[in-house]
């Protein structure tokens, strides 16, 4: 552990560069602003306490997502840590979910295809949704997703491949996309994904919606 000033500077840098990303990560995965505020505070508290474990540079962010993810899992199990740390933030985020709903309306435009995509996505198991979202929403590559999930890069490839296949199957079952998404295309795409590690590739390439 370095001297206090070095610790502070390092933490401030991590906080400055990652605060918004972690907040967005949490708002996307919580039902209300209180939960997001509590977990945000907890995440950065862990970062402060375990500063020496936080990876340098761009790797800090997926590490923080991983901490946030575990704190969220605790929250969903009914174990909440509420501290005075997040009181002020709770006030500001009290109605955040309403804003996110509005934002979702705006983005989704509520076309039939989009509604089907949303329904298919919701019907996926949580672990499928998580890998797809980490790529599509947080824009992480496989290596970064591996840091978040605490698994190997190869395991992420496999999970992503399976998630994409299940997603495609759900979409076909819902009759979305006018049959343009054929199972075969996804086999092919899955193979490509096994090779390529492009940032956000899995979510941004399908393109038929």
């Amino acid at each position, binding site marked *: *552990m370095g001297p206090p000033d070095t610790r*502070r500077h390092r*933490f*401030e840098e991590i*906080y400055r560069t990652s*605060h*918004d990303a972690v*907040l*967005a990560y949490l*708002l*996307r995965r919580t039902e209300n602003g*209180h939960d997001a505020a509590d977990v*945000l*505070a*907890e995440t*950065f*508290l862990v970062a*402060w*306490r375990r*500063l020496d474990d936080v990876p340098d540079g761009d790797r800090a962010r997926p590490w923080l997502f991983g901490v946030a993810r575990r704190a969220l899992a*605790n*929250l969903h199990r*009914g*174990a*909440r*840590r*509420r*501290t*005075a*740390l*997040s009181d*002020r*933030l*709770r*006030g*500001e*985020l*009290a109605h955040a979910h309403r*804003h*996110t*709903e*509005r*934002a*979702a309306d705006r*983005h*989704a435009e509520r076309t039939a295809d*989009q509604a089907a*995509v949303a329904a298919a996505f919701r019907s996926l198991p949580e672990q499928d949704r998580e890998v*797809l*979202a980490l790529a*599509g*929403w947080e824009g992480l590559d496989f290596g970064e997703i591996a840091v978040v999930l605490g698994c190997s890069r190869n395991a992420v490839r496999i999970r992503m491949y399976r998630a994409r296949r299940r*997603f*495609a199957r759900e*979409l076909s079952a819902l009759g979305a*996309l006018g049959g343009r*998404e054929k199972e075969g295309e996804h086999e092919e795409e899955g193979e490509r994904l096994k090779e390529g590690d492009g940032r*956000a590739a899995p979510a941004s390439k399908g*393109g038929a*919606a």
Partner: protein
Amino acid sequence: MNIERLNPITEEEAAAMVSRQTRDDLAERVMKTTPDDVPTSVRPGWSGRRRLLVGIPLAVTVATAAMIAVSVAEPDQRVGPVSVGPNRAEAAALSFRKEGDSLVVTVNDPVADPARYKKEFAAYGMDIDLTLAPVSPRRAGTLVFMETSEGGHLETILAEGRCGSEVCGVGVKVPMDYKGHARIVFGRAARPGEMYDEGPGDVPGEGVGLPDVPGHTVAEAWAVLGERKITRVLYRYVFRGSDRPYPDGLTRDQVKPEWYVHDALAGTDDQVILFVGPVKP
């Protein structure tokens, strides 16, 4: 197939929700904790990991309340009240009584200094931090927060709606052999001018005593806030989802009593923020 379009919120939108001050405030508060400090309650001598039990669903607390109501009615041996500390004339803030293998501790004085509770628990060899936080009337006498050592299990005694400044009855049932630490927060009725602590299950506006406020008129909100002696109110303008042409808020003189309240929340420094506009939400 593009799940990016399902993204509920962009990073920029999230960033815009938190003010610079709040952002800095959290960083400062985090850095004020010492590296070995688990938030708010872990001290040296703490054994094992802790189990956190907060945000217990309402259904569970209601069930507990029903169970306790039965057990409290049974004949039991009264051990307390005790008075600890130099001022023996001061009434005990807690009362203790034995019930089987447990001690049932109930709160006599819901507005006592938490240090008094701590001392009185300590007199029975218990390491328990108990506080009562101001909440909306609906949540008075309910559990707001509980945190126990690993393996610890404490039953709470609820007194829903009865935790005003005169009556209470909330408490906790502690097994005689319980050696762990616990931190418990119950809700009590707020004093005039006091903001409510918000907790799980609160509805919009509840934190400032205006539950179900969306759609009520400004005049109605003023009446409720007046009754609670809350005078510091900030007004934000809402019209068709925008704050134009008043992005910096309104003065009280600009607000019309017949307007509608869209939202209400507690700001810093005991201020209430009302989101108001001429159109019903």
